[in-house]
Each structure stands twice: as C-alpha cells, then as structure tokens.
C-alpha cells in the first residue's frame, strides 16, 4: 500500500449527498481481475453522456477544478461492498475524500488502499464546497500524523478522527495481512476452543 503522511492540494467539489458505490463505479465495469485501470470508469454514468461523450456539466470534465482531494456531499460510499470504488478513486488520482459522513464498508476499503476518508462536520463541509466554487485554487493541507485539515483561506484548522491502527498502517504503508500473519500462533490456539456448532 502507498504511504500517506501529508498532502497539500486543490480540491474537486462534488456536492451530491448519498453517493453510492454504483455511481462511483457501475457494476458492468467490475469484470476486471486486476486492481488497476478503474479510474477510467470512475463516476462513469455521470461523467459521460450516451455515446461516451464527456458530460460538460460534470465536475471531473471541468478543467476549472483539479486536485487530489474530492470534496463530496454527506453520506459518501453507501451500498455495495465493491472495493473497486476505492480503487477507481485512487486510480483516478484522488488520495483524500472529504465528507461529513461515510458508509462503513467504503471507509474500510478506502483505508485499506491508502485513500484517506476524512470526516468533517456538515457546516464546514458546506462552507468548504462553497469556498472551492468561489476559488478553485483554494488549497487544503491534510496532515495525517497530526490528524488535522487546514484550510488557510478560510482560516480554519480542524482535527479529524482516524482509527489509530489504520493511521499507523497508512503512514507506514503496512497492510492488515502483514500484521495478521504475525498472529498465527494466537489464531491456532483460538481454534482449539471453537464450539462444534460453528465448525
């Protein structure tokens, strides 16, 4: 997994609430057997009109907005467990998604792929979306070790929460399997005590 410590970037605003993983990557693009290349179909049905013509009204097709941070609406990533959603966002170039609420499975998938789901309150999210619309060059500073999001132009610095174990993994580029394999003896010992009913 790619390491993540700090990031300073402009951001792309996508002020839609309840974005589900079927929008992030529709099911018909899940037929690949590798992790790469999903960025091409990120937000496919919003990004392209019939005939594969880029939709000029969709923010990823608007050159005004660029950057490695996606600022989405409330409740991001609900629905299907497809990790392809996290892969697509990462493959496209995003490293942070900001929202005021994340669906559980998406949050876990993102953290397992070096993509930081960064939760802020509703009020700041709305102000941030408005500020980016007003000034597309607005920069954000994300500091994972300090767990802070800084928005200099709004004179804001807020602390965000992240699971301490996942934080350590992201900073060091570790994944769960490296860690779990060190637990092999404890797992084997546990197995001797399992009830017959669940074996």
């Amino acid at each position, binding site marked *: 997994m790619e390491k993540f410590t700090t990031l300073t970037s402009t951001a792309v605003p996508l*002020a*839609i*609430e*309840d974005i*589900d993983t*079927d*929008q992030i990557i*529709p*099911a*018909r693009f*899940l*037929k*690949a*057997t*590798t*992790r790469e290349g999903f960025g091409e179909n990120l937000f496919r*049905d919003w990004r392209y009109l*019939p005939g594969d013509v880029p939709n000029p009204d969709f923010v990823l097709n608007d050159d005004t907005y660029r950057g490695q941070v996606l600022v989405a*609406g409330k*409740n991001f990533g*609900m*629905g*299907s*467990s*497809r*990790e*392809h959603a*996290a892969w697509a966002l990462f493959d496209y170039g995003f490293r942070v998604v900001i929202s005021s*609420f*994340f*669906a*559980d*499975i998406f949050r*876990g*998938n993102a953290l*397992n*792929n070096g993509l930081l789901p960064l939760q802020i309150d509703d009020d700041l999210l709305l102000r941030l979306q408005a500020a980016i619309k007003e000034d597309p060059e607005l920069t954000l500073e994300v500091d994972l070790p300090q767990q802070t999001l800084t928005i200099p132009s709004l004179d804001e610095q807020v602390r965000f929460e992240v*699971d*301490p*174990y996942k934080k350590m993994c992201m900073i060091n580029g570790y*994944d*769960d*399997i490296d*860690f*779990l*394999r060190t*637990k*092999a003896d*404890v*797992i084997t010992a*546990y*197995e001797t005590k*399992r*009830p*017959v*009913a*669940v*074996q």
Partner: protein
Amino acid sequence: MQKTLFDKLWDQHVVDTVEGGTDVLYIDRHFIHEVTSPQAFAGLRKRGIGVARPQQTVATADHNVPTINQDQPIKEKLSRFQVDTLTQNCEEFGLELYGLGHPYQGIVHVIGPELGITRPGMTIVCGDSHTSTHGAFGCIAFGIGTSQVEQVLATQCLLQVRPKRMRITVDGTLPPGVVSKDIILYIISQLSASGGTGYFVEYAGSAIRNLSMEARMTICNMSIEMGARGGLIAPDATTFEYIKGREFAPSGKNWDDAMAYWQTLYTDEGATFDKEYVYRAEDIPPMVTYGTNPGMGIGVDQSIPAPASPSASFQKSLKYMGFEAGESLEGKPIDYVFIGSCTNSRMEDLRLVAEYVKGRRKADHVNVMVVPGSRQVRDQAKREGLDVIFREAGFDFREAGCSACLGMNEDKVPKGAYCVSTSNRNFEGRQGPGARTILASPLTAAATAISGHIIDVRTVLTPELV
C-alpha cells in the same frame, strides 16, 4: 453482566485485541464469488502464500453469469474470463466450488442457508454487502472488500472495530397483503439509507418471531440498505427446524451439542443497546420506493413527499425517476418486473408469486423475468409446477444468478424504463444505465405484472392470499 446476542457472538470470536481497540475476529465461514475475489487470489500469489483454512471457504459463480443456457460456454468474453478465473483459483488453492452447472450453484446468500452451511453462532463474511442475509440465523454476517477477502483467505481472521448495537422491535400482526419485504422497506423509510451506519441491528418482536426463515432472510438482507453493517435475529424453533436435515447440517451427537449451544444465543433480559426503535406491524402498508436510494420509500397508497425546500439531491433523484413531488405512484404504468435477487428469490417468494398469478396473464406491455436464487430453488419450483404457471402467465422463468438486480450480465432494464423489482437497490443505473427501479415485495411485483401498472395489492387480494 447482561449481554446482547451480538456481543455474545462477537466476544466468542475475538482472538486478540490490538492497541487502540481493534479486534482480531475469527471467521467461521467465508463465501466467495467471481467478481470480488480475483484480486485477492492475485494478492496471495504475490505474497507466495496459500489459503489458511481451505475447508472454511465456499465458492460459487453468481454475479455475472447468464440466466439462460448455463450448460453452454458463457458468450460474453469478460464474464467468461472472470468465471474461468474463479474456477482456476479454486483449483489452485484447493477450495470447494459450486460453479455453473453444479447442482448447488446459485446466489451465494441463497445457497449458504439452503445447504445448511449457514448456522447459528457463526461469523460469516463474503465480498458482498448482502452477506447480512445470513444474520437471520443468529450469526454475525457482513460484507467485506477484496483486501479483506484476501485477509480471510490468508489468515481466517479480520481486523475489525466493534460496531454499536441497535435493536429494532416490530410487534403485532401484519395486515393482509403485507409481507416481510414491506417490513424492511418500511423500517428503512423511517430510518433513512444511512440511519443504521455504524451499527449492527438485532430484529426482535412478535412480528419478526412469526416470520419463516426465508422471510427473516429478506429482512436481514436489507440491513445494509440503512447503512447497518449487518442484522441478526435470535435463533429459535423456526431456525432449528429449518436447518435440521440439510446437506451440511450437523447430525447425531453433533446436532445435540449444537442445539445445546444454539439455545444460549439470545439477548439477555436487561441488556442495553446504543439505539432502540419500536414499530407496530399493523402500521405497515405494502411499500414502494419512489427515489434512488432504498430509504426513499412510501406506502403504495401514499404520495411522494413534497418538502417545502427540497434538497438538490432529492430533486436530482425525482428527476432521474421522472416523478413529481406530491404525486402518487398507484396506477403508474410499468415496463418491466423483476422477481429475483438475494432478497426475494427463494421458494416462498416464488410460491407467493405463483399463487397470485395462477390462471392469470401478464399485461401485454410488461416484460417479466423470474430468476430463481439457486439451482435447487429452480429444480424445486419445477417439481411443484411453478414453471408452468409462470409460462402460462407470460413470465420468463430463468436460471439461477444475481441477474437484473445489478445488471452485470445481459439481464438489464433499458434506459428510461420503469421496473418494479423485488431486489434491494434502486440506485441510479443499478439495473442498467438510465433504468428506473421501484423496489417492492414479490406480491406487489406479481400484481403489478398482471395489471401493468403499480397496484395496491390490498385491493386485489383473494381469500387464499389473505
């Protein structure tokens, strides 16, 4: 100390706890399918390791398989490659596969219970969010991403933070024409598509207790549609009766030992939940959805909400669906009806549909697809003559798979067309680009197929169906 059922099960499966509170959770059963597993096997190969406990993983092909001519090679190249990759991976890593053509093949959440693999007290995971279905047996069952599929294959464990606990109690007697799908659509409409996020839900109350196992599975299946990681129901006589005698169910002394354990699986009197909701079964109508997430549901005789200052997301949703705020869906003409998916593709669903449509014929303009959840369901339906009833009604009775629930195979709903569907998600484009999905019960779907427009089943119930 009084414990919830969820906590009893969770505690039973904690192997170790990491600094910061993350648990190493042991997984009893792991289901895999062709779409979310290939990258996990590639990961194992890259690490040069095998599957830690091959007997605890079961594979099937369901998500992108065709639902006709399953005895022939899959025509669509990418789907064929993905299914072939699963077959090769199972051979290479020594895993049981119920692939296309196997008598046990079917939707992963249908075959686990019907084979007796799913049992009370287990932890069950799968790279599919509707793994919550198995919670109907008193399991901790939830969906995971592909990195976690790889974790389970590699170690039979997952790193997990314990979710909060919610209890939803439904007491009373369901009105005629209202079935378990309506209960869960009603609950989600009350709590919203994110109201359960961060929680694991226990369903309780007399209306839940009175449901069959298949009806309970429909409820637990859609727990994820309110954002909950999973849902569960304490096992009881209905559960044990269902499991007994199934292919992989314990027998003899193992059955007696299992029963002794299973009977300890309930929430202690006085145990506390982080959130509680109580509903009356009598208040639940036949439900339909009007928007683009499962929380946007109403009674079929009610009107779409008309908020004074609608959010942009609400407006976007109605525009996609081609509906107006304040209007009723009753009487709206429908183009497609889909009866299937891990939510409603079991024998009871098919029997209910058949009972309603027997001797009737679908409206001419409606395409109706009935997709059984498994080979076993399909075979049983044929033994009972349901295939004949469906054919005479003009319904297309197909072979087992996920089908038009997510439109990964050829079974899609065209752009702009309306589909009343017994599946679980009405997201934009879920059933095909531009498709407009209205979620409903199998009974509402059957009645809609016959009338050709959305109908309140309570107005057309016969005495046998009451």
